[in-house]
């Protein structure tokens, strides 16, 4: 890791940790007023993470593309960027960070323990398909994470509203009806970018490995994940799965994406995928 990259990476982690604690405080002590201040804190963490990426770019000459560390760094950046963007568009959604910030914190912690060494751009990554494939993978991961966060908030808010005295911390969030539709909207956006990611990956694989589909573990898992989200969309549109069912689906389905990004190579060490840069 580059010197400034290490510093700002750790700064970002510390800030996200504080922000995560802030959200817990807000919910447990029923204090919704701190949420906007925590959003500011998340913005500072995002800035620190951006500087860490710039420092790494400066040291290697390329954006972080491969390996679990770089995936955590850049993938986490996309998730926080998406969170800040939706919070900026709609203040009621600032609290979605309560779901995404802890996720990114865990990702960054995991990434730090992996392979943060500075490496030049591997030959396998020198193609225009990388940008399409990887960017869309990150965007879909970000969208699915937001769907998960909206699902968590939905369930908490629904539980709170069922009580005699609802927790005012949830007043800042959109109504349950809107949250339900937002979950679906994020799933849909993730599914579109996921489709582009898989199509681009297949075309890239033909040039890199000679086969557009080789049942590589990461390929297979990304297909499983795509099918799970496809089922989610069908269940919502055709079978009318809404609210609680949809929220649980959005939360559970994210596990398939996390396994695809970080878990497959832990279980099966045979993937040719770019995570391993072979």
């Amino acid at each position, binding site marked *: 890791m580059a010197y400034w990259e290490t510093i700002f990476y750790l700064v970002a982690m510390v800030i996200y940790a504080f922000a995560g604690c802030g959200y817990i405080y807000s919910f447990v002590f029923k204090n919704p007023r701190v949420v906007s201040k925590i959003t500011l804190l998340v913005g500072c963490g995002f800035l620190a993470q951006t500087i860490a990426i710039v420092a790494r770019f400066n040291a290697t000459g390329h954006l972080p593309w491969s390996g679990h560390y770089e995936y955590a760094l850049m993938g986490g950046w996309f998730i926080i960027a998406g969170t800040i963007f939706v919070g900026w568009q709609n203040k009621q959604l600032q609290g979605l960070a309560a779901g995404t910030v802890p996720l990114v914190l865990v990702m960054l912690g995991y990434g730090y323990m992996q392979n943060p060494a500075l490496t030049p751009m591997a030959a396998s990554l020198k193609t225009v398909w990388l940008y399409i494939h990887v960017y869309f993978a990150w965007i879909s991961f970000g969208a699915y994470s937001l769907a998960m966060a909206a699902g968590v908030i939905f369930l908490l808010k629904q539980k709170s509203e069922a009580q005699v005295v609802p927790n005012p911390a949830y007043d800042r969030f959109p109504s349950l009806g809107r949250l339900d539709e937002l979950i679906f909207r994020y799933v849909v956006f993730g599914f579109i970018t996921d489709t582009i990611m898989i*199509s681009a990956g297949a075309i890239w694989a033909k040039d890199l490995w000679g086969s557009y589909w080789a049942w590589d573990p990461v390929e297979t898992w990304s297909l499983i994940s795509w099918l799970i989200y496809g089922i989610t969309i069908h269940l919502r549109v055709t079978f009318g799965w809404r609210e609680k069912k949809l929220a649980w689906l959005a939360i559970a389905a994210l596990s398939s994406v996390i396994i695809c990004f970080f878990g497959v190579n832990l279980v099966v060490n045979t993937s040719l995928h770019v995570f391993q840069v072979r």
Partner: protein
Amino acid sequence: MIIRLAHPLLNILDCHMLKKLIKYLSSLRFTILLISLLGLIFAIGLWVPQKNLLKTIYIEWQKNSPGLVALLDTLGLTTIYSSPIILTLWLLFFLNLALVLWQRVPLVKSRIAFSDAKITDPITTGGYSFHSSFPLPAGLDEEKIIGALRNRRYTVLGNTAGFYGVKNRLAPIAFMIFHLSFFLVLLGGVVSVYTEFIGFIDLAQGELFQGELYRYNTMPIPKMPAIGSIPKVSFSIQSIEPQVVRNTVTGINVKIADAEGKIHEVGINTPYDSDHSSFVFKHLGVAPLFVLTDSSGKELQGAYFKLDVVKGRQDTFRLGDFIFTADFFSNYEFKDGAHTSKTMEFANPVFVITVEKDGRKFAEAAVPKNGSMEFAGYRLEMRDMPFWVRFYVVRQRGLSILYAGFLIATIGVIWRLLFYRREILGAVRDENGQRCLIVAGRSEYYKSLAEDEFVALFEGITGTSDKK
């Protein structure tokens, strides 16, 4: 007599059963079941070593647990992606998809139909979740309302006395397009599988290849196409230049001259494509020229050997009666009493050669390029050190169909899920002495979010934020 009576009954029963079966086969419940089963089987394939994909691991596993492997082999779980169960599921999936699409055709037609019958009363009409009225400011030309809706990409029928507007009217067609693209992917996939030739070939710098089948590596055995021929190509390898920075391969440049003398640059991500075939770079090796001489300097034997020694692998070759074991160090140094490589860069390539004969070790020495070693009255010289490359050769048809499927699927999913339908009904009427725009609206997928959108839309058109 009994038979005569039984036949119509059976026919009725059969017909009823058949209808029920077709109804289930064409249901979305069945689609969900099939997709779930496919996903589950794909996941099983990740944990059960696959015979065709993970040969070494599979063979080792078979040695350790022969009983279990035999059972899983019988069940087809070690060739899961082409097993009868998965092929059956795929068949049912496409059958289900075809039936669902066929059923949906009339629905899609009716949904995209556009007629005056759709203009109904915005207050009393059913099926619209959004109802509101917006006061019209004095001076707002009623026709401008229709114009403003058209500017916002609504197709509008009627006039301000009563109108119907729809945005993204043709979105249901995208549903058909997206799902039909699966058939293109299937067709492309089937064509590519049946026309597929796969083989590996090792070619060194300076070698000529004219598509001979016997030149392909015997392990793994080349896969012959069920339909079509093997690649008809002719080219020679002009040069091979690996690029490594420290321990990362940053590129490889293989120059190929085809039969017309045209030079093609091949590398990682840039295969050599010819005759529907791709020569994909897979592996790099070193092909040194070793010459064995006697003590007087007379050449006894010599050859280029394609040695698979990069990244710490060990290989052997024979000259005379001797067996030479070769370890390769691309950036050699002798450190702490051991041969090692500083980095993977080819900055100081050296072979460490061990000479044996009849199980007896004669000598061990580091031999750099243009260097030599001496043993038992002989001398081994390395006079040249070019590289060799292993190409994964694949010839298949149908890829353009497959890619068209991917493209159409992507367009279809974007169109269907982002450009979804919004429908509005409206009329300008007097309410309590105030001229108002009465509206009703509905959207696919969204209710609350669409309400926000409709409010913003009509507030923008009427120029007021004072919604009644």
